[in-house]
């Protein structure tokens, strides 16, 4: 902490270096004092109008407060001055009403141009739906069949001080949003539960995510990189723990990434996401059983008395599916029955459980879907 305090103190002594620091290296990020210029037309426009305002305010402030300080030194009673008695002057009063009004009118011009840029959401190349959840973001590439959750990756241990905080503390997510360079990306922003707000400072994009309402924002940049943002509307206790991370990739790289995602989605849809029929599962289950189970429990499911229990007519196979799935995922401690959670996929576990419940005269008749297995795993 002392080191940090010292660095800060030294930093304060060199204000010019603070103001000029770029936004690239970790060092300068720590010291950032001003709004980032960002990497898009919109963020640049916001930065420009911000700087115009700062300079206008600085000039007015120096003039007005400078005059006040002059008065405070020149017209003090201790200097033996006597107070004048005037209390009106129409000319100055009109002047200092009209002049600020004129300044405002001049300022309104760049302010309007900048705002028009923010609203220029037409003709996008890519549409991405952004949904705010308590407390994570969901990104859906509209029309591509790709959709995923983006959650904070920082561990609770780091947050509660039980482990050292990493370099990217609260600035890291499980899966960042990925967009290509030089494409106009439109974000359709909505909320799932309460109002959130999706902000990426370097894009100059901040839009509230309101449940039941859609709004649009856009971005386009030619600079690849990782950009971090935040949720900026109070959304409950996890408000500070749902960062936004966007990776901007070169177009080819993006296409490759998207293709990978689509493939993942296709596999998911044909396996876990798919609704399997009774017979499909029986066929698949028989294959898995033959490969992984029949060695002990035997092809006819009757096991070997005293060594490997029978599955035919067994209370577990005829009982609730949950318990049956649990045996495969957790194994049975102290026996030869190991956990199959890592060896078999969700689809394979579902199929084999289904098979065992409906083969050799077992006739539970229910269907165990891969999604049930996944849900069971996730609920553990």
């Amino acid at each position, binding site marked *: 902490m002392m080191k940090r305090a010292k660095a800060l103190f030294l930093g304060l002594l060199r204000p010019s270096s603070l103001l000029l620091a770029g936004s690239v290296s970790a060092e300068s990020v720590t010291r950032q004092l001003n709004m980032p210029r960002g990497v898009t037309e919109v963020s640049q426009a916001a930065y420009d109008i911000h700087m115009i305002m700062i300079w206008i305010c600085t000039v007015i402030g120096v003039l007005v407060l400078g005059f006040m300080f002059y008065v405070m030194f020149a017209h003090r009673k201790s200097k033996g001055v006597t107070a004048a008695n005037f209390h009106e002057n129409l000319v100055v009063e009109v002047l200092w009403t009209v002049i600020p009004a004129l300044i405002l009118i001049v300022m309104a011009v760049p302010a309007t141009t900048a705002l028009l840029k923010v609203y220029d959401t037409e003709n996008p190349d890519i549409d991405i739906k952004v949904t705010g959840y308590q407390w994570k973001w969901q990104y859906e590439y*509209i029309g591509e069949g790709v959709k995923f959750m983006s959650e904070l990756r920082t561990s609770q241990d780091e947050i509660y001080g039980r482990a050292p905080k990493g370099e990217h503390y609260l600035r890291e997510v499980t899966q960042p949003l990925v967009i290509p360079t030089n494409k106009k990306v439109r974000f359709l922003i909505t909320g799932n539960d309460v109002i959130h707000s999706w902000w990426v400072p370097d894009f100059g994009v901040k839009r509230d995510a309101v*449940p*039941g309402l*859609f709004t649009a924002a856009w971005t386009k940049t030619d600079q690849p990189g990782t950009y971090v943002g935040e949720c900026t509307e109070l959304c409950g206790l996890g408000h500070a723990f749902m960062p936004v991370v966007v990776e901007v990739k070169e177009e080819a790289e993006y296409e490759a990434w998207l293709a990978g995602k689509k493939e993942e989605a296709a596999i998911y849809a044909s396996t876990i996401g798919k609704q399997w029929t009774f017979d499909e599962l029986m066929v698949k289950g028989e294959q898995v059983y033959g490969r992984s189970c029949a060695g002990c429990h035997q092809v006819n499911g009757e096991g070997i008395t005293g060594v490997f229990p029978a599955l035919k007519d067994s209370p577990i196979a005829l009982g609730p599916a949950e318990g049956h799935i649990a045996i495969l995922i957790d194994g049975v401690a102290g026996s030869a029955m190991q956990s199959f959670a890592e060896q078999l996929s969700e689809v394979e576990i579902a199929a084999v459980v289904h098979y065992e419940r409906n083969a050799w005269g077992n006739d539970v008749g229910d269907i165990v879907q891969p999604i049930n297995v996944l849900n069971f795993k996730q609920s553990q």
Partner: protein
Amino acid sequence: MSRTSTHGGLLIKLLMGAVAMFAFAIFVLPPLYDLFCEVTGIGGKTGGAYTASEITIDTSRKVEVQFVATNNATIPWDFYPTEHKVFVHPGESREITFFARNKTSNDMVAQAIPNVLPNNAADYFHKTECFCFNNQPLGAGEQAELAVVFVLDPDLPVSVNAVTLSYTLFDITDRIPMQVSQIQ
């Protein structure tokens, strides 16, 4: 002091003013806001059922209409458009469907809330038929194809060449006192 009566009069006037502002907040602001939204397209609200009148089809323009579906509060339904986008001429009537399936083992009632983007297109997006006009009851495990028939007004601003229609699906089972079978 003899001013009591003056105070009384003023007190009553000011209290009435306060009560009027209270009433204004509850009874005037919400409908005013809705009206304002409808006129300006704020929030992309699309208004109620539209009765088709004589509209000429403007074949010189083709507008992309894209469909988006969202499940509010993670309502455990499958809900998605059966086609992701269509191209229509302004004035042309088109039917599209959304697929919905209640994945739970309970009867549920849902309500879809529409939105149109960009906002300045909301006024020109007419729905002659829409599942969002009513609530949608689905029994446990039931599924349905929900239809929307829409027409884009030929007066749609020329700058708009793509429109997004989105539905957010809300679970309103608790708000509906009836059984699903009764609604169906």
